[in-house]
């Protein structure tokens, strides 16, 4: 008996566990990327132990790919050397870690996956307990295949109603961030449900789960359903048995009716600083970025291309589009979305994290303002500490790129 989080940990450790208990549990996979692997390697070397299972340690290059500096190139080189020395063979360079792990079937319902990236909570969209940890935690998992977890209390989030045209999972999530604030779910797991979530496809659920950390949560889970199983079945690399909540007791229940929601925009410099788009429309923008592990998937590309079809990007604004993965890129090319973006005047970049953390491919200078589909608008996130970031859906981003200022996407859908 328990919440989805409690049931997943109970299965892992072979006994019924309850929120608040600390357990040591084996993981399915551990992932680290080019930004967090260097310190994990240092920690791992100090441990002086062999790799637990070379097939279950996944390294992804996504934060700085292709290498934008000699320093980044050297870090990639060092990681490759470490992998060769330790028999690690899974180096993924196909896009953003979270997207690629899901696409390639590493994530299954009932699973437990730790990533050295805070947005590892994205895996919750498939009913897998995914959570982010730091490099030392991950180094110990490289060596042992296990980590300690405090079984979290669960906040049940029920999204009622159906989203209006032009309003998306991202908008629902931003509205939720305003409701809960940036620490409303600290130390807890979120469990998303309700008819709006039932109606969402896997990509939209990934947007919700991805942003659960922005409210402090350690996981953002969605109970598996037929859509989950249909998505996972052809990809899963391991046999799996889905886990479901059983007579759960929630620490808190939050209800949100999304049926009257307008497109939402998070304003600088805090994710919970959210208003309806009509309150900030007209705010001039230097740059618009469509991509990231939050909103760089095929449906996001389709939505943005739908808005941009036959239009041009405002000459005072730059539009950067970065598909989340090679698969998304290839499919968006096949379906003509990339052509639409380029004809509109966008720069289409190779899959990866892009400018989301201000390392390359669209860094902002002092005083510049951008609207982005990513998950964070912290001070200086995309470059200069005086630059400003607004967060919104791909539709809001595309509409804003055409207008040159923050714009309501509902006029285009």
């Amino acid at each position: 008996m328990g919440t989805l989080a409690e049931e997943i940990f109970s299965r892992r450790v072979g006994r019924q566990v309850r929120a608040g208990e600390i357990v040591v549990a084996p993981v399915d996979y551990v992932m680290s990327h080019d930004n967090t692997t260097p310190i994990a390697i240092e920690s791992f070397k100090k441990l002086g132990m062999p790799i637990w299972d070379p097939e279950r340690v996944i390294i992804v290059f996504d934060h700085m790919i292709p290498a934008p500096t000699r320093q980044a190139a050297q870090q990639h080189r060092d990681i490759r050397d470490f992998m060769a020395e330790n028999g690690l063979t899974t180096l993924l360079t196909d896009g953003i870690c979270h997207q690629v792990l899901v696409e390639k079937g590493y994530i299954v319902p009932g699973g437990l996956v730790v990533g050295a990236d805070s947005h590892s909570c994205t895996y919750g969209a498939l009913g897998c307990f995914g959570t982010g940890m730091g490099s030392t935690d991950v180094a110990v998992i490289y060596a042992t295949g296990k980590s300690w977890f405090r079984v979290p209390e669960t906040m049940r989030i029920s999204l009622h109603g159906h989203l209006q045209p032009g309003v998306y999972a991202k908008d629902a999530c931003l509205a939720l961030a305003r409701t809960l604030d940036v620490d409303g779910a600290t130390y807890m797991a979120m469990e998303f449900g309700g008819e709006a979530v039932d109606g969402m496809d896997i990509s939209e659920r990934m947007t919700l789960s991805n942003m659960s950390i922005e409210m402090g949560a350690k996981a953002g889970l969605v109970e598996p359903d037929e859509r989950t199983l249909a998505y996972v079945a052809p990809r899963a690399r391991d046999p799996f048995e889905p886990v479901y909540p059983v007579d759960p007791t929630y620490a808190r229940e939050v209800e949100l009716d999304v049926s009257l929601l307008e497109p939402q925009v998070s304003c600088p410099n805090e994710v919970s600083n959210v208003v309806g788009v009509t309150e900030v429309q007209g705010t001039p923008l230097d740059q618009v970025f469509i991509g990231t592990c939050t909103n760089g998937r095929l449906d996001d590309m389709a939505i943005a291309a739908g808005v941009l079809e036959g239009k041009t990007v405002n000459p005072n604004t730059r539009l950067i589009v970065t598909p989340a993965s090679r698969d998304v890129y290839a499919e968006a090319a096949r379906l003509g979305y990339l052509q639409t973006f380029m004809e509109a005047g966008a720069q289409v970049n190779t899959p990866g994290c892009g400018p989301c953390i201000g390392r390359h491919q669209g860094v902002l200078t002092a005083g510049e303002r951008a609207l982005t589909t990513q998950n964070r608008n912290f001070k200086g996130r995309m470059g200069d500490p005086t630059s400003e970031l607004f967060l919104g859906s791909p539709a809001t981003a595309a509409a804003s790129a055409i207008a040159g200022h923050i714009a309501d996407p509902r006029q285009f859908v």
Partner: protein
Amino acid sequence: MEKLRGRVWKYGPNINTDVIIPGRYCHITDPKELARYCMADLDTEFIKKIKPGDIVVAGGNFGCGSSREVAPLSIKASGIGGVVAPSFARIFYRNAINIGFPIFESAAAYEQIDEGDEVEIDPDTGTIHDLTKGTEYKAAAFPEFLQTIMSRGGLRGYAEEELARQSAS
């Protein structure tokens, strides 16, 4: 553990890892170099004005955002003795414990201690003593499991000992 003693530098709530150590410095792994950029986007004077042993007192949800372990590493390397806050973001909390950097949860301490106060903290008891005001606060106790990790100087020390014990049995 030894007592911590120093002057307080005070900041507000939701201090995120991006302002503690901005993305543009995340490729750095050398603690000394990381320390140079500690709090770069929060307080450009930070690293110039602090002295070894000083204490950061900040609002709730300290360290929210990214999983970057360089955030607590840079604070530790800067010479700051510890951070007191009503709550810590979960990944920062783990990272701090894992690298053996002292953190203390106390809402009352955040409300009442002022910048510039001289404080003394006993990590073993969690007692925070404001020597300037003559007041005392008690930080929330760490779960026993975490106390064990901390007593080994961090997660690596714990893991080494645990694995040695397992292979011996």
